C-alpha cells in the first residue's frame, strides 16, 4: 500500500507535470531546431512567435465563446488553432520577406542573422503587448479534469491523490500527433525530402534543382504551426502571459541544444531531459521517500536538491554541461 501511495505521489507531482511540460518544450524546440537546420541560425524570436500565435488563438477563442461555439468538454481554443497558425504564418512570412530575405541574399554569417532575430524579437514583443497588453489571459474552458485528486482518492482508497488535468492529457496527445505528422512529412514527402537535402548540403541541393525560396517558405510555415501549437498547449495548461513566453526561450534552446541542434529527434529527447531535470531537481523528495523507504531510513529533511527559485538555473547548467562535453548534443546535431 505504501509503495502504491509513493508511486501515486511521484506521478502526481513529478511524472505528470514533467511529461506535459516536456511535450510543450519538445514542440518549441522542434521549431528552433528546424530553423537552425535549414536556415542555419538560432532564431531568438521563436518564443515571441509562439506568443503571437497564441495571442491570435486567444482572440479567436473569445470570439467563438461570444458566438456560443464550444467543443463541450474540450477547450474551445482547439477550434481556434488553425486561425492562430494562419496568423503566425502571415507574421513570420512577412518578416522573412521584409527582413531575413535581405540578409539571406547577402549570404551573411549566421551570427548576423542571430542578432537580426533578436531585433525581430523586440519588434514582436512590442506588437504583442500593443495588441493584448502585458497582463495574464486565461482562455481554457470545458472540463478542467480528466480525473481530479479527490475522485482518485475515493476511487482507489489510497491516501495520495492523482490529478490529471484535461490540458495535460491534451498536451501529450496533441504533441504525439504533431510529431508523427512532422516526421511523416520530412521523411515521406517530396517537399520534406528536399528540405532535408537543403539542410544537409545547400550547394548540392541547389544544383539538383531544389528551389531555395520554396524550402524556406515551407520551413517557416511548419515553424509557425509548431510555435502556435506549442504556445497554445502551454497557455492552456498554465496561462498566457507575454513575458512568460519570452522566458520560455531558455529551456527551449536548452532542449534543442541538448538533443543536438538541427536534429528533430534530439529536440524531442532534449525537451523531456530538460523538463524532468527541472522538475526532479527542484522537487522535495521527502514524501515519496517516506513511502518507499523502510522506516529506519526515512529522511527527516525535505530531500530537495535545489530550491524551486533556481528552476531556470537547471536549464543553464544542462546547457553548459552539454556544450562542454558534447557540443553536438546527444543525437549528433550540428556543433554550435
Amino acid at each position: 500500500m505504501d509503495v502504491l501511495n509513493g508511486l501515486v505521489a511521484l506521478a502526481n507531482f513529478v511524472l505528470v507535470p514533467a511529461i506535459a511540460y516536456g511535450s510543450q518544450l519538445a514542440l518549441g524546440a522542434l521549431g528552433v531546431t528546424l530553423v537552425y537546420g535549414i536556415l542555419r541560425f538560432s532564431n531568438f524570436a521563436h518564443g515571441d512567435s509562439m506568443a503571437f500565435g497564441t495571442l491570435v488563438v486567444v482572440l479567436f477563442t473569445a470570439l467563438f465563446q461570444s458566438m456560443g461555439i464550444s467543443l463541450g468538454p474540450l477547450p474551445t481554443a482547439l477550434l481556434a488553432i488553425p486561425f492562430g497558425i494562419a496568423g503566425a504564418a502571415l507574421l513570420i512570412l512577412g518578416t522573412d520577406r521584409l527582413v531575413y530575405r535581405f540578409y539571406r541574399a547577402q549570404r551573411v554569417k549566421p551570427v548576423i542573422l542571430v542578432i537580426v532575430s533578436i531585433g525581430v524579437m523586440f519588434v514582436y514583443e512590442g506588437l504583442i503587448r500593443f495588441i493584448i497588453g502585458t497582463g495574464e489571459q486565461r482562455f481554457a474552458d470545458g472540463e478542467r479534469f480528466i480525473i481530479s485528486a479527490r475522485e482518485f482518492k475515493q476511487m482507489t482508497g489510497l491516501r495520495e491523490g492523482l490529478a490529471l488535468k484535461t490540458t495535460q492529457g491534451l498536451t501529450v496527445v496533441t504533441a504525439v500527433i504533431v510529431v508523427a505528422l512532422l516526421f511523416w512529412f520530412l521523411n515521406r514527402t517530396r517537399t520534406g525530402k528536399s528540405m532535408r537535402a537543403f539542410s544537409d548540403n545547400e550547394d548540392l541541393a541547389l544544383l539538383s534543382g531544389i528551389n531555395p525560396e520554396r524550402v524556406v517558405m515551407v520551413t517557416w510555415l511548419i515553424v509557425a504551426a509548431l510555435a502556435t501549437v506549442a504556445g497554445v498547449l502551454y497557455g492552456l495548461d498554465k496561462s498566457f502571459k507575454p513575458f512568460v513566453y519570452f522566458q520560455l526561450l531558455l529551456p527551449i534552446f536548452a532542449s534543442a541544444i541538448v538533443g543536438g541542434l538541427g536534429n528533430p529527434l534530439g529536440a524531442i529527447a532534449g525537451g523531456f531531459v530538460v523538463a524532468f531535470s527541472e522538475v526532479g531537481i527542484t522537487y522535495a523528495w521527502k514524501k515519496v521517500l517516506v513511502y518507499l523507504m523502510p522506516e529506519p531510513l526515512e529522511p527527516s529533511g525535505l530531500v530537495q536538491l535545489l530550491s524551486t527559485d533556481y528552476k531556470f538555473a537547471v536549464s543553464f547548467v544542462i546547457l553548459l554541461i552539454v556544450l562542454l562535453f558534447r557540443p553536438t548534443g546527444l543525437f549528433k546535431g550540428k556543433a554550435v
Partner: protein
Amino acid sequence: MKKLLLASVASLAAGTAFAGGHAEEIKLGIILGFTGPIESLTPSMADGAELAMKEVTDSGLLLGGAKVVPVRGDSTCIDAAAATAVAERQITSDGVKGIVGADCSGVTGAILSNVAVPNGMVMISPSATSPALSSDADEGLFFRTAPSDARQGVVMAEVLLEQGISEVAVTYTNNDYGKGLADSFAAAYEAMGGTITINTAHEDGKADYSAEVGALASAGGDRLVVAGYVDQGGAGIIRAALDSGAFDTFHFPDGMIGQALQDNFGDEIEGSSGQHPGTDSDGAAIFVDMVAGAFDATSPFTPESYDAAALILLAMAAAGSSDPADYKSKIEMVANAPGEPILPGELAKALQILADGGDIDYIGATAVELVNGGESAGNYRQIEIKDGAISTVKYR
C-alpha cells in the same frame, strides 16, 4: 529714491510679519506611490489625508486659525532614489512641517534615514508594515498608523493555534512584505509550540507553480499559509495546490484577502481562515459616513491616512507649534489615553480641548493606539471562508 525703496521694503516686511502673526500657512507633505505597484490604492489614501487637513483648516482652531495646505509627492513605491528626491524637495523647497508617508516599506525606510532624520522631520506612514522599520534609528521622528507585520505574525500564530492547527507549510512572495511577514509568523508560531514544515518563497508573475506546490506538498502540514498577493502568485499557488490535491484549506494574511479571493475560489477553499487589519470600533463606520462617497473610504489604508494627517495636526496643536522638533514628542500623547476619546469628524472638538489645556485620546478611523515607540498596536479582523464567502469570525 533710496528712502522710497527702504520704505517699501519695510512695509513689505511688515506686511508678511502681519500675515504670519494672523494666520500661519502650514504645509504638510503627502508622499505616496501615485505611480507604481500600488497606484490604485494611493488616490483615496491621499484624499483621506487631505480630508483631515481640510477639517482642521475649516475649524480655524489650529494655532490661531492656521491654513493647512497639502503638498503631494510621488514615492513610486519602489524607487528609493526618486522617493528621497521628492522628500528632499518638499522639506527644503516647499517647506513642509510634517510628512504623511511614505507608503511602501522600502521607500519609507529610505526617506526616513536619508531625509527625515537629517532634517529632523516627522513622518507618519499610513501603510508601511515591514517589521524592519521598528528597529530603524528614527530619533523619535517616525510613526505609523498601520501595524507592523511583526504584530500580524503573532496574531496569525494565535488564530491558527486556537483552531487546533499545530503544523503548517508556509510560502511567501519574495519581497520585503512577504519575507518579513513569514519570518515574524515563523518566530511567533514556533515559540508558541507550532511546527513549520517548510518556509519557502514564490516569485510573482509566473505561469506555473506546480514545482513550488510539489515541494510544499512533500513537506506536508495541516494547512498552507500563503503570504502573497491575491491577484499575483498567491492565487497561482492556491490554484496549483487545489488542482494537485496537495492542500484543501489555507490561511491568508492581509495581502491575500480581497474580493478576488472569493470570486476565484469560493467554496473550493471552504474552511480556510485568515486575518487582516481591521476594527469594529465606531470610528471606521463614522469615517465612511463622513466621506459620503466622495472617495472610497474602505479602500485599504485610507482611514490610516486620515489618522496619520490628523495625528500630526493634533500634535501641533498640543505643542502650540508647527515645528517638528517641538511637536514630535506630543504625537504619542494625543494618540493614547488618558483623555477625551476623539472619533473622526471630531477634530474641531479635539483642537478646542487642546486649546483649553485638556488632554485627548485620539481613536480616529482605525482605533489608533501607538506602542513600541510609535507604532499602531494593530487591530485585526479574523475571517473564515464559509459557504464560499469571506465572513467575519471576530476582531482581535
